[in-house]
């Protein structure tokens, strides 16, 4: 391992990163009174797509119609702009630490790229589906929800990580 020392990716000290993230959560509450989020932006994108392709279907759907604002596009949403910022911020950090490269797949030693991609999509489907029931994902519900003492936030937090540990064994081939 020492041999590879110079190739080790350079990351922030995790506790320092955590303090920064915690302060960012406070700052976000201080400025906007609300929290960070990510899955909400994908939801807006879904609603926008459905509305563009099948406006009548979107209007009549009891779910999409809740998220179609009257006088503006579903994409004209705080979380969409914030998530766009997340992309920029990730890019900025990637450039600074030299991690931006052409598209590649990262996978565990005992699996293939194709398999990794299939499971990435499946995981994404489940995560997207579950985030609707959970009223948010790890950032919006678990992190910000718990930090603001929301009962539901803590429920989602415990539920995500508890399940993660419970099922980790069955997917170990993907990662170790």
């Amino acid at each position, binding site marked *: 391992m020492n041999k590879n020392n110079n190739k*080790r990716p350079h*990351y922030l000290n*995790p506790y320092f*990163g*955590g303090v*920064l*993230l915690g302060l*960012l959560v406070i*700052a976000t509450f*201080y*400025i*906007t009174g*609300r*929290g960070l989020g990510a899955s909400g932006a994908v*939801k807006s994108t879904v609603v926008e*797509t*459905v509305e563009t392709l099948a406006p009548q279907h979107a209007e009549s*759907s009891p*779910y999409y119609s809740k998220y179609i604002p009257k006088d503006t596009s579903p994409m004209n949403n*705080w979380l969409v702009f*914030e998530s766009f*910022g*997340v992309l*920029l*911020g*990730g890019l900025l*950090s*990637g450039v600074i630490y030299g991690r931006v490269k052409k*598209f590649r*797949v*990262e996978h565990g*030693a005992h699996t293939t790229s194709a398999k990794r*991609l299939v*499971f*990435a999509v499946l*995981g994404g489907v*489940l*995560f*997207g589906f*579950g*985030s609707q*029931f*959970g*009223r948010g*994902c*790890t950032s919006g519900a678990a992190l910000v929800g718990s*930090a*603001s*003492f*929301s009962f*539901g*936030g803590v*429920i*989602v*937090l415990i539920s*995500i990580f508890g*399940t*993660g540990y419970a*099922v980790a064994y069955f997917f170990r081939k*993907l990662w170790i």
Partner: protein
Amino acid sequence: MGPLIPNDIITGDWNFVIAILIGIAFGFILEASGFSSSRNLAGVFYGYNFVVLRVFFTAVIVAMVGLLYFDYFGWLDLSKIFILPTFLSPMILGGVIMGVGFVMGGFCPGTSFTGIAIGKTDALFFAIGLFLGIFIFGEAYPYFANFYNSGNMGNVTLTDVTGIAAPWFALGFTVIALAAFWVTAEIEKKVRKNMKEYKF
């Protein structure tokens, strides 16, 4: 004084500029902490990399304790911030589904965005999956609309539910998190000895 926008100290026009700036900070912190790599993230479930636990729980306890101090100094009125509403059973189910998705996909929505930013195809596929998942949910919504809206407890806090004051939760989370940091550091050392091919 705060929150600034709901109190009209900053006008709503700035809302989207601020959204992008906050997003940039969020994305930067996630990427710089190593959250753009699915192997780093999944490591928390296999004991070889606890970066998720460290960053996540440090953030939670700093924010919890910090919000209480902000409220005390009058900088932030905690009664005016958004409290995530609680829908008990749908949220438990949602968390379970997301937990499985997390282990399978190796990302969560926010981290997949940073993964895309630095060129991870798996992150891109995960985000496509997210899109599909929400689309499927939207299409199938009428079948479980009742369940989706069940167990609504409103925008309740831990204190509302249990009657225990917020500082107890802040202290409880802090103690658990700090203990977990020390314990997992030891676990990580042991597990890593057996893994050679993974660059940390």
